[in-house]
């Protein structure tokens, strides 16, 4: 849910900025910079487990350890192996975890992989 909070904050600042310009009375104050959002494409190699690539399977992508993005299997032979995030400048880490509907116990709780190796990147 932190993504949601972050994105809403950006929109709020944007609206405030517009209001300031429209009022015409704030010429002496410095303009509030608008954080620049960059689209970031994240991709990974497809897992070879059939259960990851079928109903109930897929991946989660965690950026900076935050609530992960779910990338579920939809159709076809493989679950998607890309997702996109909109991020402001900064340094980030990303891990990808695979999941499936199969449970080691045979129940219905499903299973997840260990996270991938952590990938570090910067948004300028």
């Amino acid at each position, binding site marked *: 849910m932190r*993504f949601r909070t972050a994105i809403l904050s950006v929109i709020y600042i944007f609206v405030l900025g517009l209001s300031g310009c429209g009022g015409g009375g704030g010429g002496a104050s410095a303009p509030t910079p608008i954080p620049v959002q*960059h689209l970031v494409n994240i991709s990974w190699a497809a897992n*070879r487990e059939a259960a990851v690539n079928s*109903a*109930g399977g897929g991946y989660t992508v965690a950026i900076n350890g935050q609530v992960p993005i779910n990338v579920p299997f939809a159709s076809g032979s493989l679950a998607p192996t890309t997702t996109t995030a909109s991020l402001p400048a900064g340094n980030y880490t990303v891990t990808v975890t695979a999941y499936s509907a199969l449970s*080691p*116990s045979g129940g219905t*709780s499903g299973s997840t992989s260990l996270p991938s190796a952590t990938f570090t990147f910067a948004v300028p």
Partner: protein
Amino acid sequence: MNKITLVSLLSGIGLLLSQNMTFAGVSFPLTGGIQFVPNQVLVKFKPGMAVSGAQFATNYGAQAMQAVGNKPDILLATLSPGQTVAQAVRTYKNDPNVAYAQPNYIYHSAAVPSDPQYGQQWAAKNNGQSVNSVIQGEGWIYPTDNPGTAGDDMNLESAWNVQTDCSTVVIAVVDSGINYNSTDLAANMWMGNAKHGQNFAADVATGAGSDPMDLAGHGTHVAGIIGAVGGNSIAGVGVCWKANLMAVRVLDATGTGSSASIISGIAYAVANGAKIINMSLAGTTAFDQAYSDAITSAQASNVLVVVAAGNDGLTTPNNDITPHWPCNFIQTNLLCVAALDQSYTLANFSDWGATSVDVGAPGTNILSTWAGTSTIIPNLISGTTPSGWVGSSTTSGSGGGWAYAASPNIGWLIEPNTTTWGTTLYNANTDDRVYKTFNLAGVNAATLEMDLGINVQNGDTFNVNYSVLGGDPFVAGGTTIASITTGRHDGLTAPYYSGINISSCISSTCSIGFQLISASASVRDIGMDIDNFKISTLTNNTSSYNTLNGTSMATPEVVGVAALVWAHNPLYTYSDVENAIKNGGRTIPSLSGKTTTGKAVDAMGALAYINPPTGIAIVVH
């Protein structure tokens, strides 16, 4: 009998509605992995619904609505691309016409085979049962932990809900062959040629197309553990209900093979598409470079080789100290297996090794297919005057010729002819023979074993011969199967001869005999004694079973699980399969410090195991 296992419906819905939130096109995770059809929702309408199914579909952009069974008020909605089940369930539930909406959950049969001996197969389902099933030939019941501990099994019934069919994975059983006519195996044999494989053992004709029929039983037992047909209402079931078993015969009727035959067998398996090789073989010879190279070649072809740890647990149990081959080879496509009993204690016969043995698997009291009827003609020298033995000597007196002796419950053939063996020396310059003719007609294999004490001096010779012609086997037509000419075998400690192959003697007139030839200037000795003289026979049929113990039995349990995993994940490499078995196993105390993983194989754990994703790439726009 199949039955439906109900999963928790209510908890599934709760999970969906509470956690599958979306925002700005980003889905947050649905944890738990409840299985449902990804583009379908079941909708139950309230009585007197104000809209038709078609109108409902139009209202919400669903592709179609169709009735389920004979319930006109329950419809199955097929969602349009881009719609998610979670969104649709939430939206539909808010419609005043809808009583409830839910995912179209996926169920599996609760797979329990109908095979009548299944209850004896504790490796699949251990409910604390006692195992007392079929025993014949070399079969025996392992007494410890029988019955064992409920739940100490391979979790196969769970796995069978996911996968029972391994037929897309060719499994080579490199062993004593397979009785491919067994009614519990025939449907699961590799169809690459008419004989379902090939023979490389030297006791029958070798070469292209030669017959890999099992004349020992061991390979058929291994094959049945992997892939006895499931659900056919015959005896037991393999780990794979459907399989693709290639018979690669490298061990002869005595269960013995050579480097050359094994290497040839591995090469054949790899060349003919095997993805997994079962080698329930072990030896303590020196490092065998050619054998190792054959496994390396298999690795290059993405072939997994699963091998037995060995059965020297009572003498040299630690493979890290006393290597057993092939277990101690270090190729990454090699998986070495120890044997567990019915309480998941390491079997007392099982070898182990903290750096050389990988996992454990059930290896005691394992019921499986057998190659035929095994018969042991016991102690053929029993009694004080056993019948049918014919003796001769070229010298006379107490030092010439053979005699019977009897102690309680055991009979002896002794040379020289004395009632108190060990006190009289055999004659110089003598040729002493004794033989008996046996009727072995109709059997497919025959082997000989005996306990033998030898005290001969240099220059003297002890021979064991047989003749398919009957009568004296030391005349023309006889065949020498053992000859000791190199000097004295000190003391009375009996060399134990087992598995002397006499299949070439199969007839109604197979004579077997013993001979002492002493030199004229011999330094004489007390001669030899022979006891526990037995002939074991195997008559192939289509319906035999046996209960055996060994790491040989644990190995195919793992092979079966590997095949289930590979069949379920056809994109897997051998390394993936190996990871799944090792990481999906169950940690058990008895394997701690005894294997590289400390784990027993768990079929469902292996199927559910997921490798961590790799290959992350980032593009910032």
